[in-house]
Each structure stands twice: as C-alpha cells, then as structure tokens.
C-alpha cells in the first residue's frame, strides 16, 4: 500500500512553519517493513494524535523521533530547519522529549533527584540541591503539583503522579515537542482529567504534543489533529472536527474485513465457567461472562481496559474482591494458578517467557510439567517413555516444528514455543480453558494453527475463554465477543460482529447511535 496524505489542512492555529515535519520516513527490521514512506506534520502549540492498531508503526515512528532508531530513508525538519537525529542525545538537544508508558524513574530517589539525574546542577563538588529544587518546583507548578512533591521519594507516589514526574523530567530539558506514549493506559478517569489539564497548559505555553492512545474517545477531548497509521504507512492527517470515533476506527482498520468461520453451537446450556459481578478494587468491577461447554467466548478490551486483570483473577494470580466465579455450577475461589488448575481450569498465561515456559528445558519437560503425577510410576519416578510418547503425540498434533522432543524450548521461535506451552494444557482435554493473549509475538502461520486448535477443542466440548487485546483474533476465534471498557463488561457481539463496530464499542463512542450493538449484556 502506498501512503497518501489526504489532508494536511490546518484545523486550528496560525499557518506558521511546522514544529515538526517528518517526510518519506521508511524503516525496515530484517524482512519486516515497519514504516513505509510515512509523513507526519505537527504544528506549534497543538496536540497531534497518532493512532493505529497494534503493529501499525506508531512506536517505530516515535522511536525514530526519540533517536532510539534511525530511519532508512526520509527527512526530519524541526521548526523549518533540517534535523539529524542519530541518538537520544540529539533528540533531547532538539527539544524532543519522550514520556514512555512505564515511568523510567528511580524509586528510592526523590523527585528532584530523578528529574536531574545524570545532568545535576553542581556547585563545586556537590550537587546544588537548592537550585535544582527551585527549578523543579517551577515545573511542578506548571503541572499543577504542590512543591512538597519535589522532595518526596518516588516510590511513595501514586502511579499517576509518577507519570507527571516523568513529564516534569521531560520539561526541565527544555522540550518543544513532547511525545506522550499511551499516557492514559495506566491511569484512572480522574487521573486522566488531570493529565489533560496539564497537556492543555503545556500547549498554551507553546509546546507541541504528540499524543498516542488506543482510547479513541480521548482524542476528541484533547487532540487538534489526528494522523492515522495502518500497516506502516500514514493514511492521512485530519482535523479532529472532521472525525468521529467510528470514522477513526474505519480508517485504522481500512475497510471491513470478514473471515469465514465455522458456526458452532454449545453442547450444553449450563455454563462451564461463569463470572458473575466479579470485581477487584482498583482494577475492574461488575464483570459478567458465561462460557458454555463447546463454545469460544472472547473477552476483548484495549490495553488498560482491565481485561488482563480479569484474566489474572480467573487464574488465581490476583484475588477478586467482589462477585463470584462458578465452575460447572460450583462456586470457586482460585487462590493461585496451581489451585485454579486443580479446580479444573486449564490456563495459557499471557506472558509466555515469564509465566509459561522453562526456557532451558526440553519440549518434553515443558509439556509434562504439571502432569508428572499422572506420568509417574508408583506416583514416584517419572516414566520417561510415557513422557516421550505424550510429547511426540502433541508435537505432531500441534504441528510443532522441531527435530526432536529433546530440543530446548528457549531456542525455538515464538510461535513454536507458544504451541508447546499450549500443548501442556492438552495432555488431557480440559473442560475449561482460559487463554490470555494466546498469539502475542507469534508469527501468522502459527497463529492460524493455534486458532485451529482452539476451534477443535471447542468442537470436542471444551468451554474456551479467550482474553485478548488483538481484535482480529477476537473476531476470528470467538462465537460471542464480550467487550470490556473502563473496567467492566459492556456490550456483547454475536458471530456477525464487524471490526469497526467492536473497536468503536471498545474505544468509546461519541455518539451512542454509532455503535450498532445487537444485544446489551446484562
């Protein structure tokens, strides 16, 4: 696809030279073309939103601007003069500051120290604490924070304040262009209000803000212009007044995609897994989902919607503080993942490398882990022959590409490793299977196969709950799709849902009639 800038018409402000003009930017990582001939023009004193689906190329654009990556082709101009950004220090010298989603702060140091670390104001041998303090207090005041925050230890501050400290750190560096990468993902609604007040103040003082967010409803509160990216290209730049949430979703998705999928019917009407009024203070509330045997239910939400926290509660990693989890009519309270497993919930954790696999061990070891009681003789020593047979069967069934079951899992590709972790859950067919982000970091081919396995399991009568923030995947595998937004289940879609409808529902809609929800979830 070639890029076309369909509009760069100013929406607000004077026709001054652009604060930032990136033209014809391309970047390739090996065989992957992350960015293709992308253009981005940001005017002084505006909030410019950059939106796109996961993998559309937003982060690479930001990394190029921040000096973390160097583009293969393209030009960058700042305030009308050509800029060469070869490293992070070049970006800082140009006044380009980036606030990453996770604050990069030192918990045991004070706010002042964090802001000046590595560039301390010195008086003789010692740090001039008073001079630093005075500057920090000024910036904190701009952000609406009291002076006492300057001397607080960072680890003692709530996450929202920590993020404001990150912004303060960027501002003390004399920023003209401030990049906010998903700043709202970890914040509550009240904290987002504060963030927006800060952004407006900064813009009023002449700073240009590049704002990245998955929550499309936010754009209409804060952005002046929106640039949409898709498949590594910039689709166009639009004044916010010309857009609706639904229109942005359409631009991001690029038309309506439908895929063939088998229609299944649940084998029983009694739910095998039911979450009812489930809540955890500070994470999510009033979550209602029921999964019947033989059906696949998708739980879809954007990053920060609370969807991953819900999965963690079903797994027993976190405890719910209200509501119930019912398994085949029996109320349960999973205390930890081992307990959840004994209760009969098979799990595929979200973070394969940290939670799901033993990197240095063989495929056979990874598959049999957790089943050793059944694969042992006299309940004592492991029956290596049985272990091997089970491993070989599953390797064949899941089409894991490996020369032998003895191969160490750490050396395998993401897709193959994920199949092995999934195989562990399939040693015996589970009644309830909960998968979190089952195809994250997995190549297309393996993704297809994992989806096929999910469908097969459902056909055999397993109740499957797929928790995901990957929309095409949610649509592809789920018979029903429950959307999580703002920490609670909202709308439910049937098998005929379209990407645009679901995205608009998950990202929030400015006009309720925009979201054509066929049935409201209780």
């Amino acid at each position, binding site marked *: 696809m070639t890029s076309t800038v369909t509009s760069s018409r100013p929406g607000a402000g004077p026709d001054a030279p652009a604060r930032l003009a990136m033209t014809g930017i391309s970047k390739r990582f090996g065989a992957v073309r992350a960015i293709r001939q992308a253009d981005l023009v940001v005017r002084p004193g505006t909030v410019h939103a950059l939106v796109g689906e996961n993998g559309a190329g937003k982060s690479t654009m930001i990394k190029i601007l921040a000096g973390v990556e160097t583009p293969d082709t393209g030009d960058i101009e700042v305030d009308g003069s050509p800029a060469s950004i070869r490293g*992070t220090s070049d970006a800082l010298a140009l006044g380009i500051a980036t606030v990453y989603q996770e604050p990069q702060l030192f918990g045991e140091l004070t706010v002042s120290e964090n802001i000046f670390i590595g560039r301390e104001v010195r008086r003789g041998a010692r740090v001039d604490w008073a001079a630093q303090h005075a500057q920090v207090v000024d910036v904190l005041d701009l952000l609406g924070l009291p002076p006492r925050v300057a001397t607080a230890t960072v680890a003692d501050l709530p996450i929202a304040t920590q993020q404001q400290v990150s912004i303060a750190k960027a501002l003390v560096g004399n920023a003209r262009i401030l990049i906010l990468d998903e700043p709202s993902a970890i914040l509550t609604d009240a904290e987002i209000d504060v963030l927006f007040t800060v952004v407006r103040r900064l813009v009023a003082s002449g700073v240009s803000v590049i704002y990245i967010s998955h929550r499309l409803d936010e754009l209409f509160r804060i952005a002046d212009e929106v640039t949409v990216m898709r498949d590594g290209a910039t689709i166009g730049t639009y004044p916010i007044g010309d857009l609706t949430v639904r229109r942005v979703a359409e631009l991001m998705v690029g038309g309506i995609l439908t895929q063939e999928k088998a229609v299944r019917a649940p084998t029983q009407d009694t739910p095998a897994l039911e979450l009812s009024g489930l809540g955890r203070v500070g994470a999510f509330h009033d979550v209602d989902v029921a999964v019947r045997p033989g059906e696949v239910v998708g739980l879809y939400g954007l990053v920060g919607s609370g969807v991953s926290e819900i999965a963690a509660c079903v797994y027993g990693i976190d405890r719910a503080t209200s509501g119930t989890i019912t398994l085949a009519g029996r109320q349960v309270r999973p205390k930890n993942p081992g307990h959840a497993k004994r209760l009969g919930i098979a799990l595929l954790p979200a973070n394969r490398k940290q939670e799901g696999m033993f990197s240095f061990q063989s495929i056979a070891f990874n598959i049999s882990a957790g089943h050793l009681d059944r694969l042992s003789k006299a309940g004592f020593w492991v029956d290596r022959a049985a272990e091997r047979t089970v491993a070989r069967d599953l390797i064949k069934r899941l089409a894991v590409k490996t020369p032998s079951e003895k191969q160490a899992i750490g050396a395998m590709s993401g897709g193959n490793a994920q199949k092995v972790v999934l195989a562990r859950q399939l040693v015996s067919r589970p009644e309830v299977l909960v998968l979190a982000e089952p195809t994250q970091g997995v190549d297309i081919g393996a993704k297809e196969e994992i989806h096929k396995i999910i469908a097969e399991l459902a056909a055999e009568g397993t109740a499957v709950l797929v928790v995901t923030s990957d929309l095409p995947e949610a649509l592809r595998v789920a018979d029903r799709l429950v959307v999580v937004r703002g920490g609670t289940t909202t709308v439910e879609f049937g098998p005929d849902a379209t990407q645009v409808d679901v995205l608009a529902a998950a990202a929030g809609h400015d006009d309720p009639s925009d979201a054509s929800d066929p049935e409201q979830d209780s």
Partner: protein
Amino acid sequence: MTTTAPPTSPRPTRRARVLPPPIAGQELVLVAVIALMWVVLALTTPAFASAGSIQPLLVATAPIALAGIGMTIVIITGGIDVSVGGMMMVCAVVTAKALVAFELALPLALGLSVAVGGLLGLVNGLLIAYGRVHAIIITFGTMNVFLFVGLQIFASRTVNGIPSTLQFFGRGVAGRTLGVPHAFVLTLLIAAIAWWYLRHTAGGRHFYAIGGDAQAARLAGIDVRGRILAAYVVTGLLVGLASCFLIAQGTSSLDQSVGNGKELAVIAAVVIGGTSIMGGRGSVLGTVLGALLVQTVTSGVTQLGWPSQLSDLFVGIFIIVAVGADLLRERARRRRLRAKGAAA
C-alpha cells in the same frame, strides 16, 4: 533551564527542606537496640561498663565498619563483594611481611596495605563491570583466588616478630588519645566523608540510581561501568586500611586465620544497617551502627562467658529481623499507595 514557561510560581519564602532527613527510622532503632544491649551488659557483667571494656569493642568494630562502608556502596549499586575476607588476608600478610623485612614506617605500611587492597578491588571491579556476570559469582571466584595467594605468601602458619609500628591503631595505650581509640576515630572520619559523598554529590547519587534501575541509569547518561568499578576499588582501598587495624589488634604475630569469615560480619553489618540487598537504598550511618551492633553481640557473648557460637545465632536473628522489617515497610508502602489509588 525551564524555558517552557516563565517561572511564574512564587518561590518558597522560607528555606524549604530539599533533602530527606539524614537519619532514617531504622538507624534510630539501631541506636536504641545498641544502647539497650549496653545497659543489659553493664548490669549483668559489671566489668563491661568500664572504659577498659568499651575501648576494645570500638577498636574491634573499626575494621568491620570500614570494610562495611565500601560494602555499603557496592550493595547500593545492586552488587555484593564476598571476597573482602580474602582481601584482608592478602593485605595483612603482605603488610606484615613487609613490616618484618623492611621495618616500614607507619605511613608506608598503611600505603602498602591500601595499595594492595585497591589493586584487588580493581580486579573485582574490572571483572564485574565488564564481565556481565553477577558480582556474587565473580567475587566468590576471586575470594578463593585471594585465599590461595594469601596462603602462598604466608608460607608458614604465622608471621612472627612484627614490629609495633601499627600500635597507633591497636588496643594498647599507644592506640588512644584521651581514651578514644584512633582506629575508631579514623573510621568515623572516613564514614563522615563517605556519608557526605553519597548524599551530596552527583557521583554518590549515581550509585543509588544504578542500584535502582541500571538500564534507566544508562539511558540517563550515567557512566554505569565507571561507577561500578569505583565501588569495588573503594571497597578494596578501605579493606586495605582495615587490614592494618587487624594487624595492630594482634600481638607481634599474624595467624593464617586473619580475615577468616570477615565478609559475613561485614555483610551482616550492612544489612542490619538498613541497606537494601536489592540495591538502590542504604546509608553509611546505618552500616557503622550495624557494625557496632555485630561487634557488641560478639563481645557481649564472650563477656558473659557464653559459647561463642551463640554470637553467630544472634547476628543471624538480627539479619532476619532487619530484612523482615524492610519487607514489611515495603508492603505497607504498597498498601498505602493502593488505598490512595482506590480513593482517587
């Protein structure tokens, strides 16, 4: 520098406190515990209350505290150095043999020991800063190498006939002025300098940043390797000085067992002093108090005539209590933040 907006906010009129308080809760607790132990010891063993008992206690505390200052910096950066016992042995035997052979003057003896310590610290530092292997593995390796080298230099079980050059730092009358042991005063002086350096200079604060998040520290433009190297070299230098104190505390002979197990006493002092073993937090003041506590336990057990293994038991309990208190504090902080988050 803040040119994003004109500084419109009113400057604080009174001089605001811009740094956290110099003494933390744990340090006050340590002072109280040490005071309590001294009172109990004085009541149960009347001999303890005399100056003749306190002075050797302070002299014996000095080498642990001194090495502990270096160890504090190392642990703040997220590392550890288990080779300090081995280093002490090498420094002590080299210095003792040189004293016997060349009758070195006091400054030369000190200089030699400190130089040898600095060299051994440099070996540790280079391997750790550039080796990308965890410090505990590297220093465990160098510990064994240092012990081997030390034993080779010893050649026999003891070095005998050491001149009294170092008596200025010893237990005797020559080691005190107005009843205060020189070794302890020098230790306090060095501790004060280290305290000021860690608290008030950029280089000092960078140790904390590295222990907090080495990757973020690198992104902030901190010379992470250089700082780590410095931490181990400083430890070596201080261990060199501590070794002279050990020679001075002995008689005219030095035994092969010198420095034996001292790394554990030093690490115990640092941990009891409130320095987080995970890095990023800690203070020299706490370490000096920790060393005093460890030595009080050791001396106290001896004075009471109890079996000496009991002192290991008590030190072990203190370590667990200190780490446990740290954990509870961390948990309370998280709970407080969560409560705040839920209220928002």
